[in-house]
């Protein structure tokens, strides 16, 4: 499953403000004709475990449709918990499909309130942080692969795992899907099937799925009988209600302990942007007056590879006591295009996450913030690997509160690595030269300096045994005419096989980025494959730029410029190894169509 659902802001303007009618504060109930009788087949009320809704803003905004009982529990809402992004999706659906009218301010207040009162605990959210961070990763819900397959037919499974509901509420969620999507029961959605258990699907009436399932030898009951087996949607409901229930000990504990985090102050920033390398700097967080759990930031950071320095300002809101959602702002050259999704550790000393931008959020920096007090803080180094039997290798150490006077002995890279000279010192950077002994044991090294340790900082290696390309499975989207395109940045990284000299073992070392030659090769997935001629081009920086979208009359069938290719990196050794055979590695790149519909939740960062 690819965690996806990328932004298409230019085309699809269904962000909350666009849908919200500013003049109406109070929600408008549906017309009388749409006020039906209560359903007869489901439990109508709220479960005994339902979480009360006490915020008057939420009650006013949602109360015309969601009734409240004497224990302040509102139908549907009280039986659900979710991430801020998922609550925003719900609010957007209420606006776009149920014609709820809310001002942007009220909508944001509702999202904030529900994320705090009906949110996820840190332990529940950590595993699916990739969803809010908009990472393109290959993720499968191992708890039940059938459920994973069923849900990820249409959307990221991370979106599903961002929910907690009672069993009745999971049932209602499935019912909502069946109401809006006519084909979801059948072949396109796979919610239901006709055959008996163990058939792997049977007839789907007079449609394609049943025909093909049976043609492949399934023993499905072509009478379409469904009563003798558990339907896929029923299995998913049972799995989800067991694994992701409304009530959990994690939420019980966190909802009691939750508070506004104390974040104001200085933070040391360390990041990594694929294709551009490490970035270091400092960031200051200040309380944002008048905004509950609101903060502002100012930061300055330097890409160590190029020395380029970047300033960054942002505003953010913390949801549920630990979920940082920010957006760049107040900078003349950045009208809010960068978003920040971060996870605040419970000890308040470290924040991790991703800053991202691009039409599909494809450009991102992995961020770690460490609180700066009075002691030195080490953020990292500009080099990621040190070769054995070398001397005077220059290393820049980034951080904060570095002393003015530093001695070589103050900087400790561990066994076999000796700091031979302090080249320069500054409060946020110390430059040193190091010697690496021939006998230095290959492996990662911690860096200790001034009482601060970062682990690991560099790895020691003897030679580059191989290279690898990341991401190993890339995704690009054609565009540039009507829809924006989605480029993909690749990076080649050196690999050492470690002490055992064997590939793919536990002691393999990632040596960091290496300079390679890039090219594309055909990935022959179908006969007469000609994708490489159309999909786009890769630059020697590793950046793949897709071709434009739309039918191409030069392709058979007027197909779009989509397809899949290999991205190949070739590394020529330098120095003593220059005559060695070039190392090659490859990644798969899927070039697909633009996202025509935008389902992203971006209001939570405002």
């Amino acid at each position, binding site marked *: 499953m690819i965690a996806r659902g990328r932004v298409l802001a230019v085309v699809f303007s269904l962000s909350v403000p666009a849908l919200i009618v500013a003049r109406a504060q109070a929600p408008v109930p*549906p017309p009388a*004709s*749409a*006020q*039906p*009788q*209560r*359903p*007869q*087949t*489901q439990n109508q009320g709220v479960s005994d475990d339902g979480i009360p809704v006490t915020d008057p803003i939420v009650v006013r905004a949602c109360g015309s*449709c*969601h*009734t409240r009982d004497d224990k302040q529990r509102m*139908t*549907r809402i009280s039986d659900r918990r979710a991430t801020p992004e998922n609550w925003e999706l719900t609010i957007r659906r209420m606006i776009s499909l149920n014609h709820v009218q809310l001002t942007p301010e009220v909508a944001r207040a509702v999202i904030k309130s529900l994320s705090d009162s009906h949110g996820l605990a840190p332990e529940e959210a950590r595993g699916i942080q990739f969803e809010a961070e908009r990472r393109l990763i290959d993720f499968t819900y191992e708890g039940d692969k059938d459920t994973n397959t069923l849900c990820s037919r249409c959307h990221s499974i991370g979106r599903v795992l961002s929910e907690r509901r009672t069993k009745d509420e999971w049932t*209602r969620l499935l*019912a*909502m899907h*069946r*109401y809006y999507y*006519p*084909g979801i*029961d*059948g072949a396109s959605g796979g919610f*239901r*099937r*006709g055959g008996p258990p163990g058939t792997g699907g*049977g*007839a*789907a*009436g*007079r*449609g*394609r799925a*049943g*025909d*093909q399932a*049976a*043609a*492949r*030898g*399934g*023993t*499905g*009951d*072509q*009478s*379409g*009988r*469904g*009563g*003798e087996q558990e*339907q896929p949607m029923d299995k998913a409901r049972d799995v989800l209600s067991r694994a992701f229930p409304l009530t959990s000990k994690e939420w019980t504990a966190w909802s009691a302990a939750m508070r506004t985090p104390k974040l104001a102050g200085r933070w040391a920033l360390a990041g990594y942007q694929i294709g551009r390398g490490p970035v270091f700097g400092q960031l200051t967080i200040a309380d944002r007056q008048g905004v509950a759990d609101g903060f502002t930031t100012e930061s300055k950071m330097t890409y160590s590879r190029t020395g380029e320095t970047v300033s960054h300002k942002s505003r953010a809101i913390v949801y549920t006591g630990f979920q940082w959602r920010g957006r760049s702002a107040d900078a003349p050259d950045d009208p809010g295009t960068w978003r920040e999704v971060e996870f605040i550790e419970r000890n308040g000393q470290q924040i991790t996450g991703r800053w991202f931008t691009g039409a599909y959020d494809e450009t991102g920096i992995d961020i770690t913030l460490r609180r700066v007090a009075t002691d030195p803080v080490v953020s990292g180094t500009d080099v990621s690997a040190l070769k054995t039997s070398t001397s005077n290798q220059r290393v820049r150490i980034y951080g904060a509160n570095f002393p003015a006077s530093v001695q070589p002995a103050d900087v400790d890279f561990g066994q076999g690595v000796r700091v031979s000279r302090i080249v320069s010192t500054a409060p946020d950077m110390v430059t040193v030269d190091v010697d690496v002994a021939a006998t230095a044991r290959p492996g990662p090294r911690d860096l200790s300096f001034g009482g601060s340790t970062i682990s690991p900082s560099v790895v020691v290696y003897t030679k580059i045994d191989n290279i690898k390309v990341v991401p190993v499975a890339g995704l690009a989207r054609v565009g540039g005419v009507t829809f924006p395109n989605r480029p993909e940045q690749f990076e080649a990284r050196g690999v050492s096989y470690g002490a055992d000299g064997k590939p793919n073992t536990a002691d393999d070392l990632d040596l960091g980025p290496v300079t390679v030659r890039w090219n594309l090769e055909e990935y022959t*997935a*179908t*006969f*007469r494959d000609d994708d490489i001629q159309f999909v786009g081009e890769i630059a020697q920086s590793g950046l793949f730029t897709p071709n434009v979208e739309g039918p191409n009359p030069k392709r058979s*069938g007027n197909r779009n410029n989509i397809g899949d290719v290999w991205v190949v990196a070739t590394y020529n050794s330098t120095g003593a190894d220059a005559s060695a055979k070039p190392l090659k590695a490859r990644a798969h790149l899927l070039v697909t169509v633009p996202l025509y519909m935008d389902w992203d939740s971006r209001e939570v960062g405002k």
Partner: protein
Amino acid sequence: MMRSTAPARSLALALAIGCGALVAGAGLAATNLLAQSKSAAAENRITGGNGTLYIGGYPNLVWIIDEATEKVIGTIHTKGGIPRRLNLTRDKKLFYIIDATQEVVEVVDIGTRTTLDTFKLSEGNKRVRINSIEPDPTNRYAILLTRTATKLTDRVDIGPATLQQYDLKEHKVLRTIDWPDGQERDNANLMFSPDGKLLYFLGNEILIFETGNFKQVDKWELSNIEEGLGQVSATFGGFGGLDTVNDEPGFLTTALTVEDPVQHRRMIGMGRIDLNKKDLDFYTLGPAGGVTIVLAPDRQHAYGLESAIGRYEFWTIDVAQRKLTSRAEFAGRPRMAMKTSSNGKVLYIYQAGHTIDLYDAATYKYLRTIELDGDVTTGFFVVPRQTGTSATR
């Protein structure tokens, strides 16, 4: 609109030969040769016959294609929305079209290309989705398989799958038919007997209902027809639904699979079901893969289409000899379905996309492609030339 992209290699060859002859100075003879070559090429052009092809597509239309010229000769513009399912009546005079929302049924007279009626059961906040429709032979009523989805104030309510008898003239539900065995089905392959007195539920067991009160009068299991046949699994209808154009009334031709008792290999075979005599003629063809089978108009041949990722095959089945006579790989395309032409000489490959590829049924050689100006959204019917125009209802 539409283009027919023929390779026309034979014509080019003929022209080349003709040019060579002209250079040689034998002008008159060369002219005759050119004319003869053109004539030969025309005679050798393999066409599907003189029937009519119907296929629904985006947006809101059914293309009518003359089989002989392979040109679009007209369209039926559907009023109910994007057609998703075409049901051809046994007399080949009407289409019952279900739209993409599954809420609207449109009855189209094929002869006049006009919409005779549209109806839906949805009202207010209640959507009634019609999963399938089977009109009785007189077009007086239809059996509908429906499921309701009702939008309530803060939730939706999904109803059970329901089998209903619907009066096509009065536009009202006459009755709700009890599910066989009292067990709800998500899907139902339904078929009336030619006289309309019986209704068949088609599956591995075939349930037979009288159509007076829709009570079950009989039931037979395909697996029990012959001792030792094993567990039979039947397929009724490919992409787009059940197509009985080439079957004689009361018969159904379909792919069946069986599993042998010892090695548990699943085999695909050809099944001819005589609904009147409760008989099944079945023989295996080979390992079960992704093969679908269509009957040729002469009922002496049938063709199989195997579609696995990256491997596509045509099969030819000699119905009289009860065996697979040939199979061959071809280029194919992902997501395809097949129909035979009205004269049985051409195989049409279609489904995803806006094209219909023509192949020679005898040699499996690619012939031409019919291009449509929109994507196909329904199954595909080849209607032989017939007398009569519009139907009466």
